[in-house]
């Protein structure tokens, strides 16, 4: 199950997983959870629970001291993880254990400075070796990404770029030309966090992204927090990305075990949403 190449990453597994969801006539469910939150082992169990509940793909957050694109919920989780002493080695262990236990694709999502500092070659080699499928690097714009893409491609790691409602059509063409895995379409202008509604901007952005002629799946994130919203987004996108709602379940739970069960339950609800069974 876990990819074809023995030493390479699982970029191919990510593409196959999204294609399989499409073949079933549904959107994929992509969950985000930070590594090291609330503990490294607790974080791994939460990710396994998200998969068990029905997530097709998980993005593992590599916490950063300065998460400028995250709202208060993920800021709080990152802060807990960093104060707990989470290191990149712990993120790699999280990726490895989550992938090995489930055979599912696991991405890393983080800011550029930790990878720049760690070394692009070292990071991509270790991520591939851990069974990772790729990375989402929202503050690494396409014009600064050549070095990352070169090393990622060498290890069969997907490079998922974010597009925004403000992206002009020529930017969308530039980004989809070099991205891989899928395209992360930000549903609205803003940072991560749950929203009461996901705006009409999202559908328009998905349409404009597809109009570039890209063959990449287009998945929508930012603001989605429940099955109804997931079903709405599933009506026009190839995947639904949910982050803050999972993290909030963990933060609000009385203890770690209850938080993990809440993650499993939310994934179950959202899995129905992406199948439009709500």
């Amino acid at each position, binding site marked *: 199950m876990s990819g074809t190449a023995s030493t390479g990453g699982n970029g191919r597994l990510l593409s196959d997983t999204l294609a399989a969801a499409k073949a079933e006539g549904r959107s994929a469910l992509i969950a985000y959870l930070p590594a090291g939150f609330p503990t490294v082992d607790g974080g791994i169990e939460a990710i396994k629970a998200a998969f068990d509940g029905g997530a097709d793909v998980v993005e593992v957050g590599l916490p*950063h*001291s*300065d*998460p*400028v*694109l995250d*709202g208060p919920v993920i*800021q709080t989780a990152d*802060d807990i993880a*960093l104060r707990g002493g989470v*290191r*990149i080695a712990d993120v790699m262990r999280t990726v490895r254990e989550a992938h090995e236990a489930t055979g599912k694709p696991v991405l890393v999502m983080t*800011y*550029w*400075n*930790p*990878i*720049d*500092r*760690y070394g692009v070659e070292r990071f991509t080699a270790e991520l591939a070796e851990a069974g990772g499928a790729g990375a989402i690097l*929202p*503050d*690494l*714009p396409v*014009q*600064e990404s050549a070095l990352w893409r070169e090393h990622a491609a060498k290890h069969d790691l997907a490079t998922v*770029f*974010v*597009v*925004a*409602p*403000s*992206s*002009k059509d020529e*930017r969308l063409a530039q*980004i989809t030309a070099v991205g891989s895995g899928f395209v992360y379409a*930000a549903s609205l*202008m*803003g*940072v991560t966090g749950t929203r009461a509604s996901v705006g009409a901007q999202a559908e328009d952005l998905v349409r404009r992204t597809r109009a570039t002629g890209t063959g990449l799946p287009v998945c929508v994130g930012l603001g989605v927090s429940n099955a109804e919203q997931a079903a709405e987004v599933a009506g026009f996108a190839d995947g639904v990305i949910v982050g803050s709602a999972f993290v909030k379940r963990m933060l609000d739970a009385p203890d770690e075990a209850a938080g993990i069960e809440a993650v499993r339950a939310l994934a179950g609800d959202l899995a129905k949403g992406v199948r439009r069974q709500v």
Partner: protein
Amino acid sequence: MPSDFFFPDPTGQVPSAEGYFGAFGGKFIPEALVAAVDEVAVEYDKAKSDPEFARELDDLLVNYTGRPSALTEVPRFAEHAGGARVFLKREDLNHTGSHKINNVLGQALLTKRMGKTRVIAETGAGQHGVATATACALFGLECTIYMGEIDTQRQALNVARMRMLGAEVVAVKSGSRTLKDAINEAFRDWVANVDRTHYLFGTVAGPHPFPAMVRDFHRVIGVEARRQILERAGRLPDAAVACVGGGSNAIGLFHAFIPDTGVRLIGCEPAGHGVETGEHAATLTAGEPGILHGSRSYVLQDDEGQITEPYSISAGLDYPGIGPEHSYLKDSGRAEYRAVTDDAAMQALRLLSRTEGVIPAIESAHALAGALEVGRELGPDGLIVINLSGRGDKDMDTAARYFGLYDTDAEVAADAADIAEIEGDAK
């Protein structure tokens, strides 16, 4: 007619089209901000060559700010600097009390040209926030200022000034609750409200074109100082000295002197309790290249790229990054940077106050302390220009507590002894 006060870099060599000063700079920004940042670059390019923009800015700089700012010789202070001749570039005399207004008025005009109605800004010591709130009052723009919670406490006077001017001041409670976190929060606001909002960035950091644009608006400091020192001393200085947090006042002073290779450019970073203690914000002395707030530059960080919490008694210098052009000037050897402790800065603050009747901002006092050292190194033939980037009114609470100046403080009794100690130190 060419402008008397607006001098976009005539060399045009750096930054590159992609915003790089050598290995530093660039544009590390989320996709959501790409269109807005590109718009700023395009509008600024247009404004640079538009005589109407220069005319409007000149009018404001003369009749509102009060440019040109004076160059004041400080002979009693200079006695403590090895007898070198010392001149202060008096940016503290600008309207609002610091150099920050130069950049703010330029970007406020740009905001109007872009048709945006709301301005956001970060502030550390509050000087950039006050200048921004001032320009927003002048131009009728909505204004929100982000300020670290710790800074709202130690610079409470400036919080009141901003509110008096009609700005909303948001105390930022995340991270180290200082300037870095105020910038993070301003970026979050900008991503969500970019349609009608301009982020009036206050220093020569951030993504391209901010480092070059903010520098251009401050180049007037060095252009004036160069002309003034030639008139007054008959020659170029041996050293131009400025404090560096993000680096805007320093780049403003340095830039016109870059081609004058005989002029040493010396930036003074905050060493806090001492670089060896780890409690400092001496980015160029102790940092490593990395990405913070949209560009590559020296950054205080750990071995896995987490930004470390800086410390300085000066809210305006309490920042773990630095403008990319300073990193370029450091690595190329054109500028040199040294670290100045809290204590050295505070002693220099009191020394200037008591020898010259000028109370400097704690930020600027780092440059004064650095210049005392430089003067002793140069000896009596030395000639130094220091950028006095701001006035110290906002720092009186910090200074009063540091020196025990309130009536309730027992140390007031030791006042006379303090003077003797200062005079004694220098001889």
